[in-house]
């Protein structure tokens, strides 16, 4: 019954929006929006009850429980308001191949220009409440190139948050796929690495080379990007899923001193204590893979967020369907607060974009998600998603 009523309301809203749209040209300069919500998860502290968020020109102007609503502002009401979710590991919109696999080392390349802004992936992201996406190149070669951070909707020109967020290094067996030392010599698959040791060797050899190359001699774009990794000027996103791969990241870290962020981390439960000790954060994608790894049983795997929380490992949930992931994490042991942070403020901090997104606070981008109930209830639905205060997507 309630569903049906909601459907009708949604219909009315759709029809109304069409009607207003026809008239809207007259009132085009209207850019102040006031959202009243029963609960606002600002993610800066305890949730506000019965608060108001004022948005002007795509930015949050004010948040509070007792706020005067400016005259002439457009008004929205919703049960629960959250910051737009941040997916810290995504491949949305990548077109024409996700890595230049003809070479093992292409750290100077950037994934940003290959994004298809019209891709359906972004529509899906918006449907799921995700407003910011960290897009990583693939792992078909060892040093794949630079990642970028974009909004899931808006003008292509205004959607880029960070055009090069960090460098992606595949510390896993992915780059060995298809390679062989004994096939036809005219194939690119006759190349290193052919196994996991080869992957580590390539990383080590290239980083060593970057270390000993003096800044004055033979500086190339490629060498510069490797040196930025070493100096910590550029974050390193190490794609590692198996326990031993994460171990390798730790080993390389000891040798070169860089500060990695683990992407994937399915078997991070095997090395959690080291990760905690070394303060290495994890962008956890295990919830989306669906596979239960290792002989230890499911609980360790499903409750990685809970364990991270307990040991103080910074983690975020990534790889799509973020709200579902957060619910799942809570069900298996994480606290509600940690789960919600893991899809909002934590990825924002990890990606160094918390000045723009990740919380509901004055001055932040108006990236918001309106829900019809408590966010971690399985029956709660996303009613709309707002990106930069502009695009409201009615999800049903």
């Amino acid at each position, binding site marked *: 019954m309630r569903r049906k009523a909601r459907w009708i309301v949604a*219909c*009315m*809203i*759709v*029809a*109304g*929006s*069409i*009607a*207003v*749209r026809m008239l*809207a040209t007259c*009132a*085009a300069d*209207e850019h102040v*929006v006031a959202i009243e919500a029963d609960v606002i998860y600002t993610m800066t502290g305890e949730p506000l009850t019965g608060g108001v968020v004022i948005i002007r020109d795509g930015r949050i102007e004010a948040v509070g429980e007792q706020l005067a609503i400016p005259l002439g502002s*457009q*008004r*929205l009401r919703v049960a629960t308001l959250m910051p737009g979710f941040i997916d810290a590991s995504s491949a949305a*919109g990548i*077109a*024409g*191949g*996700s*890595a*230049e*696999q*003809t*070479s093992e080392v*292409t750290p*100077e*390349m950037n*994934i940003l*220009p*290959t*994004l*298809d*802004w*019209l*891709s*359906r992936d*972004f*529509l899906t992201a918006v449907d799921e409440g995700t407003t910011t996406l960290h897009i990583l*190149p693939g792992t078909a070669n060892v040093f794949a*190139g630079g990642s970028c951070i974009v909004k899931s*909707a*808006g*003008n292509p020109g205004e959607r880029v948050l960070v055009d090069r967020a960090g460098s992606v290094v595949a510390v896993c067996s992915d780059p060995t796929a298809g390679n062989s030392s004994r096939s036809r010599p*005219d*194939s*690119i698959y006759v190349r290193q690495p052919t196994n996991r040791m080869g992957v580590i060797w390539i990383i080590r050899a290239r980083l060593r080379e970057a270390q000993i190359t003096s800044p004055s001699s033979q500086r190339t*774009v490629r060498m510069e990007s490797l040196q930025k990794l070493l100096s910590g000027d550029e974050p390193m996103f190490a794609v590692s899923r198996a326990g031993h791969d994460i171990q390798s990241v730790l080993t390389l870290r000891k040798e070169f001193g860089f500060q990695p962020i683990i992407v994937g981390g399915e078997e991070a439960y095997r090395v959690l204590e080291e990760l905690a000790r070394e303060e290495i954060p994890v962008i956890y994608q295990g919830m989306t893979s669906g596979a239960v790894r290792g002989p230890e049983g499911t609980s360790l795997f499903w409750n990685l967020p809970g364990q991270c929380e307990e040991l103080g490992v910074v983690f975020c949930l990534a790889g799509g369907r973020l709200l579902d992931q957060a619910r799942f994490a809570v069900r298996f042991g994480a606290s509600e607060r940690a789960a919600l942070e893991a899809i909002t403020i934590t990825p924002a901090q990890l990606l160094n974009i918390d000045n723009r997104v990740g919380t509901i606070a004055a001055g932040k981008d108006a990236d918001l998600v309106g829900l019809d109930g408590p966010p971690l209830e399985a029956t709660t639905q996303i009613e709309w998603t*707002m990106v930069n*205060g*502009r*695009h*409201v*997507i*009615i*999800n049903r």
Partner: protein
Amino acid sequence: MDCQLGSGRAPARRADKQFDFSAFPAHALGYLARLLVVLSFCLLPRFSWADEQAIALINGRVVTMTDQGAIEPGTVLVVDGKIAAVGSEVAIPAGAKVIDCTGWTITPGLIDARSRLWLENASAGQSGGDAALDAYDGLDRFQDDWREVVRHGVTAVYVQPAGGDVCAGVGVVVAAAPGNNPAAWILRRDAGMQAALGVGADLSGRGRVRQFDRLKKLFSDAKKYQDDWAAYREYEKKKSESAPPAQTETPPDAGEGRRDEGPPPGGGRRSGRGGRGAISNEGGTEANNPPAQPPPQEPAESPAAEEAKPPTKPDHDPVKERFVRVLSGEVPVRIDVRHGDEARRLLLLAKEFPAVRWICEGLVGTGTAADDLRGARYPLVLGPWIGNDQAARDVVQLWRQSFREDTGRLVIASYTSSGRGSRWLRAHAACAVAAGCDPETALRAITVHAADVLGVADQVGSIAPGKRADLVVFAGDPLDISAPAQLTIVAGDIVYELPRRNAPIAVVVRKDQAADLPDEWPEQFVLSSSRVLLPSGQIAPRCLTIEKGRITRCDETLAEDNQWPVFDVGSHLVAPGLTMAHTTAGMVNADYGAVESDGRQLAALDGFNSTHRNVRRLRSGGVLLAVIAPDDRITLAGRMGTVRLAMEVSVVNSDVGDKVVLTSAARRSEQFPASLLGQIELTHAMFTGNTPASRMYLPEPVQAALMAVRQAETQNTLGQQRWVLFEVGTDAEMQVALDIIQQHQLRAAVMGCRNIEPFIDRLLATKTTLIARPSGETDFNWYFDDLAGAADAGVPILWSADSAQQLRWLLAEAIAAGVDVEKALAGATTAGAGWLGFDPHRVGLHPGAPADFVIWDGLPTDLRSRPIRVTVDGRAVETVED
């Protein structure tokens, strides 16, 4: 508004759920207004009134396809989904929806006698070759292709299981109407039995013999099945006569006793329900059907029963039963013939099974056997006429005589393998006209004759009272592709309506004989025509004085002091040659696939063979200027050059710019770049001078020299003296191309992207030229809408295709979608020539320019017209007769 993701496009394109925020309810006051909007939206999109309300199309030229001929002005009245009245004086009932069709032509809905509507490729694939399939079972009524098809006036399509086997099964005639209305949707089941005498992997002579044997066996098995049943029934009949009261078996003729009823002797049953009925009754049939029927336990009284062993009751076989209906001629065989051997074997088969009705299709490559086939007087389904140049040439060459002599049996079909391909049916028919077919015959071949052959002439194919109201209103001649369909009605429902009201496009009266033209022009002469295409795209009367291969004067009237012979071509169009903005014609052994991805040292013209057949075909098709470009196998594909297709092809400029390929055609995993990522890297490097050194094994000085050559022209490119062509396919590639153009401020053109609308602003901002390509079989109509939108917004458009005919087809489709005729004509002749790298002073019909022109017997954008005289440097060009 700010919706960037393209809401408001066709629904098939993107299911956006975006709405602008400003649209959100501000306060409760708007509820009433919203309710009204909801109501109006509920009412608008459904044409529900069509069921009750009559439609009257008035003041149009009605091409009835009956004895009435064309009625002008005439009215067609549609009531209850049927045509109620046709004529010049028709009383229009009160309350009828009246549509004024002044200047427009009303024809029956067009019928494509061989296509794929509703039948996806996956559903039409392989078969067991045993006639078991029914195309009906593969139809996907949720497909949206019919919308694409009705927009071009096609309302009925014959589909059959794919011709990949000797005999796949039966086809069905479907309507291009919403699939949720079954009554309107299916016009006829079992409209033909697909068969082929030489298809599949084995195309050798032996393979064809095997195919023939298999097909023949299907026929003989069916014959035997029929005979067995006849014998059995005969026996049963005699038996029942001799012992009337005690019956175990029902005689076959007794009313509802369908279960035991064998195949009808002469094909009495209609529309194939028998076959399926038998399938559903299988269990029962078996129960009634012990393997060896013992003779009835009756005292053998009659002497007849003693002397012959009683026949056993044959097994029911639904497939064979279907074939029995083929034997009797009830279901025609659609026989695919593509070789002389096959044609001869078909005639043998026909002799053996005289009652079978044959409809010949395929019909390319039959060689001299074409004449034998024509002698047999089977209906011929000819096609394709465009799209597949080789097949089209074959059809024309082999069946030209049929245009005149077999007019009553000629059917034109699109032979497409995509449901959307039927929308080209008119183009196919127009090309048949260009090839010499009478326009009347061509139009009949896609309406009334097609209906005849498909067995649906009692329902559709002509405009007569009582027929189903499948009608099209064209804003011009039905066979002029540049005249769009204004309105399409299927079974009384308006299923398509062009949003704009197109000005009727004048029907050009085509004279059969051109003005008396000499075989060769004299040294000096005057060419006079009432229709000369001027550089602006306008058409006006002019007299061109031509002296020694050059145009020396261009006057509105004949100069009084004229001393040269005057050739008046009347209303034939005199136009500059067409300009092909991009072609790889004449490129021989120029596959760059094997070298490195940086091919900037290579010039397309070095691989160009000016005497190549395709080049001569371009010229005799009316193309006189062309940009010759390298192919698309590597990213930095090489240098493009411009040529004038004179008798001795002359190079205008061997290096006008670079071609950059961003599509997947230039990505190979063996070689950098294997991804778009790498292509971007390489292209940027090209403009920043950082391209990777050659990986070829070259001595160092050679290596250095090669890199120098590669880099030599970069400054000229950045200085906009050269232009850059970006070949793109997907949206992402288009974005990348525009990014690069913007960043390096290039004079550039993009080619190949189908989705243009989202990029119009950026194309304008970067002053980028769009090079349009013909749409593919699987493209949607919105491609041309996008082109029209871009042209409207002021994006310069140049045109390119694989052949002259396809170029004109592209222009015609674009004009039908709303591109301005003059703009299109100018763009395809002189307007873009300067930009592409030709000398503007030497292009076009003005004094000082070389006497390069084409005399057309209609507009070049009308596919029915032909270039009747191509002249280069004042000399007539011999036409390549295919």
